[in-house]
């Protein structure tokens, strides 16, 4: 059986033209996807958790397989006994699960956080200080005659972005020939090689370059020693500004090269402000290159349910937001939380050492289809149906377009949403 127009649950591009060939509930082939997409589908069952498991004591080396009921019971007990639980992850699961996780956080007075804390949080914090001038990816394809990739490398990180939306694609009023493509990065990436112009910037100097451009647009002189300051020569900056002002529809894509280099949200703040100012001359937009496929989903769902996108605390029975104070990494590093529910992420592998180390000292529950380093140090491990492969749901693309994830094969396990619903019931009955 061939299932068409499947949405790929890997990166923020959410390509929705994937064909998956299924026989006897097994994925046999994947068409249209990039290498990452194909691997994600074909190998979805590799290293899978086979049964709910728990450790009787934290110090036990081995897990024992238990029933789902027992795993839910034990999880409920841990969350109920915790004074300050942390719920973390959720950027790679469906919106319905993200909503249920927030409800569970509200019920248990937990802090809930997702991955922007460590990737595109600065984009959202910039939205909160200066706004956002953006366009859906189809607008980029149809109209953009200038595209700037700043601190991002779609050819390798979002492999189909360049062909589908932003580079070689032909739209209603634009195509590759009409589109002038610039890459600004600290090294000559594959994306830079495919661009019309590569501007090499010294590491950590994004804010300086943005500021110089903003000042020049407002009529200030570009200093002669600009190359010394940021590694970019004056002619390149002047040409860039002329191209920007001359474009009919310009778009900036930026990645973690901007959000996580020195300056963080001040860089994105500056870049968005630059784009706002360019709209006095012509039409310009700026889009973040979100990595995990449903980071945007959690921003939306938690946004409409609580008003806040991440780093949300419920200890006063209403939502509070404060990145830093309520960010998972800091809460763990400061050893504040006394239990953690980890859903669809692997903080032991990805978070800084001191944050990961605290996880080994407190009760941890992991809900994940696959084994992870975090699962190994957990007290309870609950396998689930993989969203977008074994479970349906909603996901939001990097530009906010909502799409329906499909189920292409069946799983013997519940979806994240169903597991969280059972946990909510369990907490309510206690």
């Amino acid at each position, binding site marked *: 059986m061939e299932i068409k127009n499947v949405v790929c649950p890997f990166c923020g591009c959410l390509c*929705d033209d994937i064909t998956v060939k299924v026989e006897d509930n097994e994925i046999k082939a994947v068409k249209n996807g990039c290498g990452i997409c194909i691997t994600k589908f074909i190998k979805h069952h590799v290293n899978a958790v086979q049964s709910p498991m728990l450790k009787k004591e934290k110090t036990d080396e081995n897990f024992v397989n238990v029933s789902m009921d027992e795993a839910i019971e034990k999880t409920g007990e841990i969350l109920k006994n915790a004074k300050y639980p942390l719920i973390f992850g959720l950027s790679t699961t469906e919106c319905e699960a993200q909503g249920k996780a927030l409800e569970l956080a509200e019920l248990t007075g937990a802090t809930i956080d997702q991955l922007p804390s460590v990737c595109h949080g600065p984009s959202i914090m910039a939205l909160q200080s200066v706004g956002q001038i953006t366009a859906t990816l*189809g607008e980029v394809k149809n109209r953009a005659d200038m595209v700037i990739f700043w601190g991002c490398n779609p050819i390798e990180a979002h492999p189909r972005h360049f062909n589908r939306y932003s580079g070689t694609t032909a739209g209603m009023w634009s195509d590759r020939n009409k589109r002038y493509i610039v890459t600004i990065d600290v090294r000559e990436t594959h994306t830079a090689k495919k661009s019309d112009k590569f501007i090499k910037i010294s590491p950590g100097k994004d804010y300086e370059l943005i500021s110089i451009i903003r000042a020049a647009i407002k009529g200030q002189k570009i200093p002669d020693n600009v190359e010394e300051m940021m590694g970019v020569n004056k002619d390149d900056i002047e040409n860039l500004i002329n191209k920007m002002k001359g474009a009919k529809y310009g778009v900036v894509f930026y990645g973690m090269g901007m959000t996580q280099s020195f300056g963080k949200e001040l860089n994105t703040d500056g870049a968005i402000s630059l784009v706002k100012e360019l709209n006095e001359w012509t039409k310009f937009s700026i889009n973040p290159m979100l990595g995990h496929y449903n980071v945007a989903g959690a921003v939306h769902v938690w946004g409409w349910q609580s*008003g806040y996108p991440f780093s949300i605390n419920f200890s006063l029975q209403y939502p509070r937001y404060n990145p830093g104070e309520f960010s998972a990494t800091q809460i763990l590093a400061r050893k504040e939380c006394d239990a953690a529910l980890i859903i669809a992420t692997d903080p032991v592998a990805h978070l800084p050492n001191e944050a990961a180390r605290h996880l080994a000292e407190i009760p941890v529950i992991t809900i994940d289809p696959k084994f992870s380093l975090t699962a190994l140090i957990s007290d309870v491990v609950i396998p689930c149906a993989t969203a977008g492969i074994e479970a*349906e749901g909603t996901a939001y693309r990097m530009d906010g377009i909502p799409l329906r994830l499909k189920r292409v094969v069946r799983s013997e396990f519940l979806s994240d949403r169903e597991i969280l619903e059972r946990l909510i019931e369990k907490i309510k009955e206690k």
Partner: protein
Amino acid sequence: MLIIKNGMMYDPANKIDGETIDIYIENGKIVEQPANERNNNEDIIIDAKGMIVMPGGVDIHSHIAGAKVTKARVMCPDDHRKDVIRKTKISRSGTGYTVPTTFITGYRYAKLGYTFVAEAASPPIATRHTHEEFNDIPIIDKTAYILMGSNHFVLDNIKNNNFDGLKNYVGFLLNATKGYAIKIVNPGGVENWKWGKNVKGLDDVVINYGVSPREILQNLAKVRKELNLPHAIHVHCNNLGSPGNLRTTLETIDAVKGEPIHITHIQFNSYAGENWGSFASGASEISDKINSSNNVTVDVGQVIFGNATTMTADGPWQHTVYKLSHQNKWVNIDVEMETGSGIVPYIFKENTAVNAIQWAIGLELFLLVKDPFRICLTTDHPNAGLFYYYPMVVEWLMSKKKRDEMLNKINPKAKEKTTLANIEREYTLQEIATITRAATARIMGLKNKGHIGTGADADISIYKFDENNIVKSFSSAKYVIKDGRVVVKDGEITGTHFGRTYYVKTKGEANDEIKETFEKFYSISFENYAVEDVYVPRKEVTECCKESITNQ
């Protein structure tokens, strides 16, 4: 059976004006009084002696769900800290202030006595999102208007003089999005904004298409009629917000040549003057026009002083607001093939001349339009004010004294540039029930809403009315009944009821031409476009074309 006894009923649609009538409710509907005296212990009886009883409120235009609403929520954490709501045993937590979270939106509308709210602007490609949020808005019924005024297929069909193609496309789009009405925002101007331009009037042209706002309005009004949709075209006019725009508004009314048109937040389109210095009221001309044209209905978009968050598909206007407001935040989103949107926080200030005049113009319109069935109470929430301040508007309309108090307090230009000070009219309770219920439901074509006749949905609000404190009387209902269940008592949420999503089913389906263009120029697959049934777990579908039913 639920029985409401001894209440004074205001049911304008059934011409009941303050009579004491008992109401009988069964299975979520209003039923006839039983022939025999009932003596059933299971009956719930509400004694509404000394209280007023009205149909549940119906809001014809508000921004409560979808992409721009949540963008506004996420963008304003500063706004939420002023207004936090704890969870209770039965209700969820959340935040306000200007853009409340979904749960709080449902609770607060219910506490006001409102039971049906229309989301006024949903971009088709993001309407799945709108429905997702509807499913997190408790108690009230919801529906979505679908943005079409700058849609590629609409513009292209008009350009090619293909009316049948246009009609088919509009039908397809409403079916695919599970929407309710045709929404037109700054026709053509939103497309031009994608090139940094706008349109200046009805005969300006849309770049690359060569069609005019006038043609867009005329064609969509005709499509509306032929598809037999329950609500007129719902229009946010060109030149919204600009001095002198009353001429555009009058031309817009003339352009549709007698076809039904609903002009929304018309306060923002009733301005005289040539520039901000000579800014003045055009309410007299506009209300004269409404009074003399029976195809026109309006809602007001009354200004409430204080914080607001402006949000609209009218991107070019939002860019102007951003520059006028001296706010640091501006959001613009261009939505492929369809529409755009802009968001800017804004503060309406009593001492700012333009804001004071805007406030007075809204009230002038309410008071100068003679037939209350033609004008609806809205604040274009959260654009001109927040829906939880509707009771303030009611007070200004019912009490000349109260509105004069405000008029004397604000910038004196409001007296100078409008006629408000000279208007003596005061609304009656029956007229209030009309502009908040009977008129809105009738204009939207909702047969079972906005009245308390037999067969109507049992959506009812009961207030303890104190004419010396009108704001308090309407701010928190004594009882609210939704689908026959008590959901609010003494201003507190008592039940976790969920309302329905309303949408139309009409004639029109995607042909090969639509699919081919779609696959070429959208960034998603055609097959993933239509909103799946799973997003409308509780629904009420209005069938528009009898023909299309027999075909199936």
